[in-house]
């Protein structure tokens, strides 16, 4: 009987948890005895090292790499030393380190759940699954970060929680807001939204910009990036959360950074979170007064201006009963136990989680390209049409009818699209699959075609396209494609033991 773990694969830091013998979630420390591990990689003598040393070296030379979660799902390669890696490869290195540390600490890992930001697109979700696979983890499920956090808070609340709650998750790279109906340990996600580029990393960049400006003022010279790194900026940001000003020594020069100035500079970023919260209230069809509590998640919620914004937006004090860096992984461990093979659990653990119920909803719309009548222009246009709408309870399956456009049509081109909003404009949707379906010849226009999209528990799409009359069909499963990745053995070869 192995252990289950939940992994919060974060932009700046990652954390892992398991459930103890009594079924309660607990943090699994890394081999350095820390609860969180920097998601940074350092290349040393042909070995990849993950952790604090890599974080400290970030930005100093080409042998360090971090913040690659922001690139997940993109068709790009990131350089580390003289080799190139996909973001999934680099995430796999971090996951591999966590897996090794967890095995040292708690023994064999039978199943794992990895968390993802709510607004990750299909490619980024697939890349995450891919990374877990490369790392040798048995990941059957992924879960949205705010959902995992909500599950933890609901579990810790026993049967006391009831009503509508918000999960405000501002981490190192992304911001997520979820509105959740909680009844005891029953968690139902009503609405979720996210900002892809908003987190502590952006605050660090602003600190760097401030330092550059001040340095120029004092010396008249340009501050070199290796003289004030991301790691330095992160430290100063933490100090500014506790003090009104900090003095920084750079190249024997003293510069002063003030909290007031920092808060002015990050105001537009905090405003983005506020606007998204308000939009999510509308989407969930609730008013702020309906929200019984706000759960804080993510290290960036420690920034005083962020905390004040939460209080102003939600008109209440937020709830923060645990370390905000750890709550997602704790929830993920519970989710792993809840969704995974119960044979891995003892009787007490089974009893502890038996009340848990999680209902997710889709965070994206899925559709296809079709010719649609544009009434305003009085013309036929190629547009995106929606088959699965955002907010559908998962798992879900929807079928829509389409029709051939001309006589003797022997083929249709199919595009599966993904978008957050129900976009009509093809310029603003992501095409996640393209293909064709051959049709029988010599038929008039208007032949009915049935497009069925199925979105499973793991947020993976399965699609079926059927020509109704002939029964000809095409099936597509959008899952775990291993794109642009090095092989597991290559990663293994580089990993430090």
């Amino acid at each position, binding site marked *: 009987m192995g252990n289950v773990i939940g992994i919060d694969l974060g932009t700046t830091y990652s954390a892992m948890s398991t459930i103890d013998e009594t079924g309660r979630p607990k943090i699994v420390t890394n081999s350095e005895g820390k609860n969180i591990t920097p998601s940074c990689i350092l290349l040393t003598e042909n070995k990849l090292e993950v952790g604090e040393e890599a974080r400290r070296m970030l930005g100093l030379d080409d042998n360090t790499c971090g913040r690659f979660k922001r690139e997940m799902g993109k068709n790009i390669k990131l350089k580390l030393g003289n080799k190139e890696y996909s973001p999934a490869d680099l995430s796999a290195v971090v996951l591999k380190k966590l897996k090794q540390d967890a095995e040292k600490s708690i023994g064999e890992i039978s199943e794992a759940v990895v968390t993802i930001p709510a607004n990750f697109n299909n490619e980024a979700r697939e890349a995450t699954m891919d990374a877990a696979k490369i790392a040798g983890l048995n990941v059957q499920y992924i879960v949205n970060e705010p959902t995992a956090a909500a599950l933890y808070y609901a579990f810790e609340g026993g049967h006391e929680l009831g009503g509508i709650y918000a999960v405000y998750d501002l981490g190192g790279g992304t911001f997520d807001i979820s509105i959740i109906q909680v009844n005891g340990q029953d968690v139902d996600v009503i609405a979720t939204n996210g900002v892809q580029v908003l987190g502590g990393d952006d605050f660090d960049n602003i600190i760097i910009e401030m330092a550059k400006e001040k340095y120029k003022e004092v010396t008249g010279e340009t501050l070199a990036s290796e003289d004030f790194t991301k790691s330095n900026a992160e430290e100063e940001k933490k100090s500014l959360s506790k003090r009104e000003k900090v003095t920084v020594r750079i190249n024997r020069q003293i510069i002063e950074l003030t909290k007031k100035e920092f808060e002015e500079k990050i105001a537009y970023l905090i405003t*983005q979170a506020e606007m998204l919260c308000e939009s999510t209230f509308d989407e969930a069809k609730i008013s702020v007064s309906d929200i019984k509590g706000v759960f804080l998640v993510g290290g960036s919620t420690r920034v005083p201006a962020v905390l004040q914004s939460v209080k102003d937006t939600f008109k209440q004090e937020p709830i923060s009963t645990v370390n905000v860096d750890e709550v997602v992984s704790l929830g993920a461990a519970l989710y792993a136990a809840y969704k995974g093979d119960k044979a891995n659990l003892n009787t007490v653990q089974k009893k502890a989680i038996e009340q848990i119920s999680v209902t997710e909803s889709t965070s994206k719309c899925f559709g296809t390209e079709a010719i649609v009548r544009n009434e305003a222009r009085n*013309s036929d246009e190629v547009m995106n049409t929606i088959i699965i709408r955002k907010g559908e309870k998962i798992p879900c399956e929807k079928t829509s009818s389409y029709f051939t456009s001309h006589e003797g049509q022997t083929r249709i081109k199919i595009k599966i699209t993904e978008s957050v909003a129900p976009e009509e404009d093809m310029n603003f949707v992501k095409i996640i699959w393209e293909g064709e379906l051959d049709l029988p010849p010599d038929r008039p226009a208007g032949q009915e075609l049935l497009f069925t999209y199925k979105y499973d528990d793991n947020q993976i799409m399965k699609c079926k396209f059927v020509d109704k009359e002939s029964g000809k069909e095409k099936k597509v499963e959008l899952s775990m494609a291993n794109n642009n990745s090095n092989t597991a053995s290559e990663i293994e070869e580089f990993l430090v033991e």
Partner: protein
Amino acid sequence: METILLLLFIFFGGAIFRMFFAGLGAAGRTIVGDGSLSENWNRSMGNFGPFTVRLIDKTVENIDLKMLEIKGMIPTSGGSLDLRVMLRDITDGQENSSPVITLIEHQQLPDNKTFFMNVNLGVIEHGMGIHKWVEMLRIVPMFLIPPHTGKRRIQLVSAIYDHNNEAIWGNTDTYFELDFSGTGYLEQSENDKKARSLTIQLSVAVALADGQLDTSEIDIINKWILKTINVFDDEETKAELGELYQKSYDNAVNPDNNITLSFVTKEMNEYADDNIKYQALSLCYDVMTADGEIATEELNIIKNLSKALNLDYLEVERMRDKKMVDFDTSQISKESIEDILGIDENTSEDQKRKLLREEFKKWNDRLTSLDEGPERDNAQEMINLISEAIQKYK
């Protein structure tokens, strides 16, 4: 596209009419009617009377139809035959006749919308005929478009086409009246020409809004004129339109002419269909962004234009967003973002905040779908600009 097809037809309509009798290989269609053709065939020589065509008015499910029926001796020496039917508007005399077009796709010529039907009769031997009237096809007057509006006299030209001999037999004419209240296609063509001339004047007005006509703006307008003209193949038409559009441009840039926007938009509303109006607005957006800067005056003109042309707000917004994602948004100042988003300065602060929040949500949602590159950078810049703009309403 529809307008372009219509225009193409006008200039090639005569050729198409000649093609009708030249044995065009149109697809055969199934014979319909109460009594089938096979039930009425016979071969008793001389008892059928001449080949005759008639039109019968009938109403089916509240739709007025004209049913074409035939009877009599089939004029052939034997072979595979088609019945072919075409409509001509002869209100202004045979010498000035024009084809009639239809909106029903399977009653059109393959390359344009001219009414044309081809009914395959099968292999007919010499001496065969039809005893009783047999329905061959149905014409739906409500889908017919003559060249001009009003009461029109329509000539139905029918003929038997012999595939074996590549010959036409039994050319027969039938007539009916068509009361058409819409815009005839020739009128529409003239209207479209006027509307496109007006489009040029609108685009020049936008270009001049900041006080000067930039080279990049002139370039955009010229490209649009060329693109509009180049859909035509024949040089005569190109030359005619080129001259017309050049004149329109010259009039617009000449300050002595004092062309007012209110006059142009009024004319546009009279002559342009919605599709041309959107094309005009799209050109105005292109002109606005041509020099890499967006002037408030240009924005105001476009805002007023979309209102004056009674365009659908959502459609205008869709067009604007498409332009913005291609525009280098780093050139936009946070002061002008509200103008770009079409937020009226007289709107209350609460409403402005709400509108900005909606725009933020929209661009933020789109960012998830856009790949790395200029479009994504521009969308991110829009998000940042909106976030900064909204702070004054907190």
